[in-house]
C-alpha cells in the first residue's frame, strides 16, 4: 500500500504541504506521521472513520492546534504555526461548530465578513449574495436558531465563504442536506475550484460525492494516511481485484460455469440484476475476456471492465472487506 504524499500538478504551487505530522493527546496518538501535498485549485477529500484524526488535522492546518511534531507544515506558502495569523484571512472553515442562534442569518454572515476585514456595507453585500446562492434570501432576517438542520448547514457553508477564501475546509458539508441541495453544493464547489482556483479540503463520509467532486483523496485510518491519489488511483491500488461485468439481454441467460471456463477468469458471481461479475486474474486479461464473452452465442446488453469504486477502496482500507463486492469469496 502506498504512503506517498498526495500530489496534484507538481508544477503548481502547493496550497498545503505537510510532512511527518504527529499529534498526541496524552498517551493517545491522533496523527502519526501524516504527509500531504495538495496543489492550489484542487478539490481534496480526506476520508476516514470517526476518530481517525480528520478534525485534528483540520485544526492543525488552521493553526488553532499545535502539532506534537512535524517536519514541514506549510499552508498557502506560510509556515505554521508561526505564520498562522497570515494564513487565517485566506482560509474559510466550515466544521461541525454552531451558529449564533439568537442572531439572524444575515447578521451571522455580516459578523464573519467583518472579522475577515470587510466594512459593514461590504460584508452585508457579500452576505446577501451568499444567502441568495444558498437559497436562503427569504429567511435572511430570521434567527438562525429557527432554521432546520439543512438550512443551518447551508448557512455554515455560506459563513465559510464570506471572506472570499483561497482555501476552504469543509467538514461533512452535505450532512443534513437533501440530495438536490447536495448536488447543487457539489456543482458550486467544482465551479469555484475551476473558475476561481479555490482549493477545497473536504472531510467526509459521503464516498460517492467525494468520488464525484474530488480530484485527490486520502484515506486516514488510525492517524495514518493509508492511501492517497486520485479516486481512481486509490480505488485501483486498494482494490487490486479486476472485475468484468456481463449484462445479458432481458430474455437471455448466461451460464456462470461457461463464463468460469473462459481463459483468464478466476471466479464468477451472479448479481441481483441478472448480470454476472467475472473476476479476472489480472487487468491484462480483460481484453481477451471481453472478446471471448462477446463471441458467446448469447444476446448481451453489454460487457466491460467494472472498475473498483472509492467506496470499495475505503471499506477495504478500514478493514470492512466483507462489504466489498465479491469480498470474502
Amino acid at each position, binding site marked *: 500500500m502506498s504512503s506517498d504524499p498526495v500530489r496534484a500538478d507538481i508544477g503548481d504551487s502547493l496550497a498545503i504541504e505537510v510532512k511527518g505530522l504527529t499529534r498526541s*493527546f496524552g498517551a493517545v496518538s491522533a496523527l502519526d506521521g501524516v504527509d500531504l501535498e495538495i496543489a492550489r485549485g484542487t478539490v481534496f477529500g480526506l476520508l476516514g472513520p470517526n476518530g481517525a484524526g480528520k478534525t485534528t488535522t483540520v*485544526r492543525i492546518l*488552521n*493553526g*488553532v*492546534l*499545535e502539532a506534537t511534531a512535524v517536519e514541514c507544515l506549510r499552508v498557502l506558502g506560510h509556515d505554521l*504555526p508561526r505564520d498562522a*495569523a497570515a494564513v*487565517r*484571512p485566506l*482560509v474559510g*472553515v466550515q*466544521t*461541525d*461548530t*454552531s*451558529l*449564533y*442562534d*439568537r*442572531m439572524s442569518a444575515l*447578521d451571522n454572515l455580516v*459578523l*464573519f465578513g*467583518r*472579522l*475577515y*476585514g470587510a*466594512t459593514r456595507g461590504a460584508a452585508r453585500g457579500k452576505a446577501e449574495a451568499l444567502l441568495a446562492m444558498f437559497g436562503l434570501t427569504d429567511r435572511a432576517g430570521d434567527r438562525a436558531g429557527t432554521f432546520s438542520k439543512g438550512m443551518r448547514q447551508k448557512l455554515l457553508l455560506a*459563513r465559510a465563504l464570506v*471572506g472570499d477564501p483561497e482555501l476552504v475546509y469543509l467538514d461533512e458539508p452535505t450532512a443534513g442536506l437533501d440530495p438536490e441541495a447536495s448536488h447543487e453544493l457539489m456543482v458550486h464547489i467544482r465551479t469555484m475550484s475551476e473558475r476561481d482556483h479555490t482549493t477545497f479540503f473536504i472531510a467526509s463520509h459521503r464516498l460517492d460525492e467525494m468520488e464525484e467532486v474530488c480530484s485527490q483523496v486520502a484515506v486516514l485510518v488510525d492517524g495514518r494516511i493509508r492511501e492517497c491519489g486520485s479516486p481512481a488511483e486509490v480505488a485501483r491500488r486498494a482494490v487490486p481485484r479486476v472485475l468484468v461485468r456481463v449484462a445479458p439481454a432481458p430474455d437471455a441467460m448466461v451460464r456462470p460455469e461457461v463464463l468460469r471456463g473462459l481463459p483468464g477468469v478466476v471466479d464468477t458471481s451472479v448479481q441481483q440484476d441478472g448480470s454476472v461479475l467475472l473476476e479476472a486474474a489480472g487487468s491484462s486479461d480483460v481484453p481477451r475476456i471481453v472478446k471471448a464473452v462477446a463471441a458467446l452465442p448469447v444476446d448481451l446488453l453489454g460487457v466491460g471492465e467494472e472498475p473498483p469504486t472509492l467506496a470499495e477502496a475505503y471499506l477495504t482500507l478500514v478493514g470492512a472487506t466483507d462489504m466489498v463486492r465479491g469480498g470474502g469469496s
Partner: protein
Amino acid sequence: MDWGRVRAVMGKDVREALSNPQIVMPLIVVPLVIVVGYPIIYLLALRLTPGAASGLGGFIGDFPRSALPSFALANTARRAAYVGVVYLFAGFFLLVPVMVSTVIAANSLAGEKERRTLEGLLYTPLSDAELVVAKIGSSFLPALGFTWICFAIYTAIIAVFGAPLMGRVFFPTLNWWALMLLLLPATSLLVISIVVMVSAKARGFQEANAIGGAIVLPLIGVVAAQASGLMVLSTTVIVVAAAVFALADVVMLRVIVRSFRRARVVSYLS
C-alpha cells in the same frame, strides 16, 4: 490590534447577552431591589414613620458627626437618611457592576464553548489579543453603562424621596462621583479580567459563573464592606484606591493577553 474586529465581536456579544433571558432577568431584578426598592422604602419609612430613625439603633448615633454636613445634623431622620443614602448604599452599588460583569463575562468564552460557537471564531483572522480584549470589553462596557444608568436612577430617587426630608438636593456627593467614575470602573475591570480568565478554561457558563463568583465575591465582599468607611474618608483616598485597582487591571490584562493561546482553548474542546 484591529478595532473593527474587536467592535464586531463586542457588538455580537452584547446583542446575544441582551437577548438571553437567563442573563437579562437577574440584571433587572437585583438592581431593582438594590437601587430602587431599598432606598425608596428606607426614605419613605424615615419620612412617614417618625420613630423609624431611632429604631435604627446605635449605628446612626455613633456615626462620626464630622462625616455629616450641617444640614444633615438637624434631626435624627435627616442623619439616618444621609448616612443611609450616602454611606451604606455605596457597598450595595459595588455589587451591581460585579454581578452584571460576572454574568456576561462567564457567558462569553465559556458560554461560546458550551454552545459550540467558539471554534468558528478561532478559525477567523481574529487574533488572540483581539478576542480577549473583545470579550473583556463586551462585559466591561455594558456593566459600566448599566451601573451608570442605575446611578442616575438612584440619584433621581434620592432627589424625589430624599430631598423633601432633607430640605435640599444633597446627592450625589463628590465621593460618589469618584466612586462611580474611578473606583467602580477599576474594580469592575479587575473582576471581568478574572472571570474571563476562568471562562477560558471552564467547560460551560454555569461552571465559569460559579468559579468566577467564588474567586471574585470574597474580593468584592472585602471592598464592599469597606465601602462605607471609604466613603467617609476624603476623595483623595478613593482616587488612590482606584489607582491601585487600575494598576492591578493593567497587570492582569497583560497577563491574560499574554497567556491566552487559542491552541490551549481548542484543546479543551471535544
